[in-house]
């Protein structure tokens, strides 16, 4: 039987980890990820899970421990945010090449400097080119479900790549919401056990992991990684279909909200998509044909499917919660890329919002829709929402 709880996004992810019952968790607490580790540590202390929890002295060690455990054959997890992700970067970047299926919840938080503890996506958007799969969650429910899905996706033999599962810092991680926690037995059956073909503790079949690869083979190994990334597109949908049988929910690459007859849409990730749905409903009541696209799977990016979904609109506003200094913002870049082959390109407008936790309101989103409807767009200009003048 599933059970409804009133819990935070952080607790929802800890619930997913309780049901996954990983062999090893090594993590260092960092705001706003701390309540995940705190809650999970209490599960360990109370014997609710039989995970070996390794307290470490830094995030660099946290990811190093997780890598060691995963290479040994364990199902190993970590969790972090912002500066923590930055500190463990050296090891994070090595994980995809080692082909270790580590799942790491990320609670999105701004990067220093200036120091700031609040939500934006500059931490995980800095990690889009190194070979981790990335899944973004709108609310606590999605963070919970995406974490379960991520385990099976990461460990699939055609993928064997690490996955980051994002939720918005404080807005989701520290906000209490209604969350449906699925039946323990059903989820345990779904996540199963990790059964690696090769692992270091399999002493009868010794193998080398992470060797030196010079110009002779490095390139080829990277090419294999890219193939695994492309495989992840298919496996994501397959695993999602399986999870649907438990949850009754769907796991598409992106969510389309009231887009069927829409003339203009906003593309936005994570918690702001929820606020935007309310804005869409209010404008629909006024007879305005507006809709929303919420990307969920960001790496690998589903270019073809996104192009098909987007090319029918007149204008598209893309809202990014991070800047790619000196370049177009990350989500905007992908939307532009997706539409390059399109014959009838919609008009595009880039907006940056919410850096360092700057609030965004339904009224801001409605203003964006009005701007798109008015045709006042310039695809080469980056506009800013609620920036002090």
């Amino acid at each position, binding site marked *: 039987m599933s059970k409804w709880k*009133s819990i935070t996004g952080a607790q929802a992810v800890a619930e997913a980890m309780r049901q996954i019952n990983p062999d090893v968790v090594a993590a260092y607490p960092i705001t706003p990820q701390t309540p995940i580790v705190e809650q999970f540590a209490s599960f360990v202390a109370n014997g609710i899970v039989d995970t070996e929890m390794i307290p470490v002295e830094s995030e660099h060690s946290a990811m190093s421990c997780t890598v060691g455990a995963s290479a040994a054959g364990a199902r190993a997890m970590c969790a972090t945010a912002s500066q923590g992700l930055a500190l463990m970067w050296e090891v994070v970047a090595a994980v995809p090449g080692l082909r270790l299926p580590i799942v790491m919840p990320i609670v999105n938080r701004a990067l220093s400097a200036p120091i700031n503890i609040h939500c934006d996506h500059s931490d995980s958007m800095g990690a889009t080119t190194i070979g981790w799969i990335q899944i973004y969650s709108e609310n606590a429910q999605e963070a919970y479900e995406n974490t379960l899905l991520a385990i099976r996706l990461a460990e699939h033999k055609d993928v064997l790549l690490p996955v980051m599962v994002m939720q*918005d810092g404080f*807005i989701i991680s*520290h906000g209490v919401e209604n969350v449906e926690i699925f039946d323990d037995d059903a989820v345990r059956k779904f996540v199963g056990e990790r059964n690696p073909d090769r692992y270091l503790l399999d002493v009868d079949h010794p193998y080398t992991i992470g060797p030196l690869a010079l110009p002779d083979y490095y390139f080829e190994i990277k090419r294999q990684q890219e193939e695994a990334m492309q495989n992840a597109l298919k496996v994501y949908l397959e695993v999602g279909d399986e999870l649907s049988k438990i949850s009754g929910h769907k796991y598409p690459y992106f969510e389309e909200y009231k887009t069927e007859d829409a003339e203009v849409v906003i593309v936005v990730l994570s918690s702001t998509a929820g606020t935007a749905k309310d804005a869409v409903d209010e404008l629909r009541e006024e007879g305005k044909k507006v809709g929303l696209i919420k990307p969920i799977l960001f790496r690998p990016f589903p270019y073809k499917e996104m192009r098909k979904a987007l090319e029918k609109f007149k204008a598209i506003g893309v809202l990014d919660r991070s800047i790619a200094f000196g370049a177009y913002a990350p989500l905007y870049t992908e939307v532009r890329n997706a539409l390059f082959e399109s014959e009838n390109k919609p008009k595009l407008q880039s907006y940056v919002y919410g850096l360092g936790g700057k609030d965004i309101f339904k009224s801001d989103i409605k203003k964006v829709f009005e701007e798109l409807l008015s045709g006042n767009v310039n695809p080469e200009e980056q506009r800013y929402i609620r920036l002090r003048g």
Partner: protein
Amino acid sequence: MKDVYEVRMHARAGQGAKSGSQLLAEAAFKEGKWIQSFPEYGSERRGAPTVSYTRISTKRLRTHEPIVNPDAVLVFDPGLARTIDVIHGLSEENGVLIVNSTDSVEEVKKQTGFNGKTYVLDATGISLSLLGIDAPNVPMLGALLKVTGVVKLESLEEVIKEHFLEKLGEEKVNKNLEGLRKAYEEVAK
């Protein structure tokens, strides 16, 4: 009751507004509602001004914006009104303001500049007499329930028991429940 009922709580860190916001949400959750409870975070230190929000809805909640037009505002420390616009977005026609104060309703109206429905409660006095500490959150919720009926008293009592029995023991839980009921009876218009 409206489809979505929104409460904002102004307090000082340490007065239990974050817990208060959560207790209220959980009481509504028990009644089968969709809920959100979230605080505004800054650099936490005891005594600093805090804001906490509770949303209670008959429909699934999707928005993640802060509450702009609250139906009720609770002020845990009347001194906050000197520097913070505690009634921001509160409608004088339909809004409800509840202030933890020993002053009269008229004086509180003057202090806050609010001319709508205003109530005062000596929540700190109740807390000090029963628990010996300044934890006005539970009495403030008692006043809110009496004035608005947003959740049932029994639902909140149940949540308080669940939350604190293990942590505080039976004696303190009973004193909290007594404070809740006392506030429910004493809140003055």
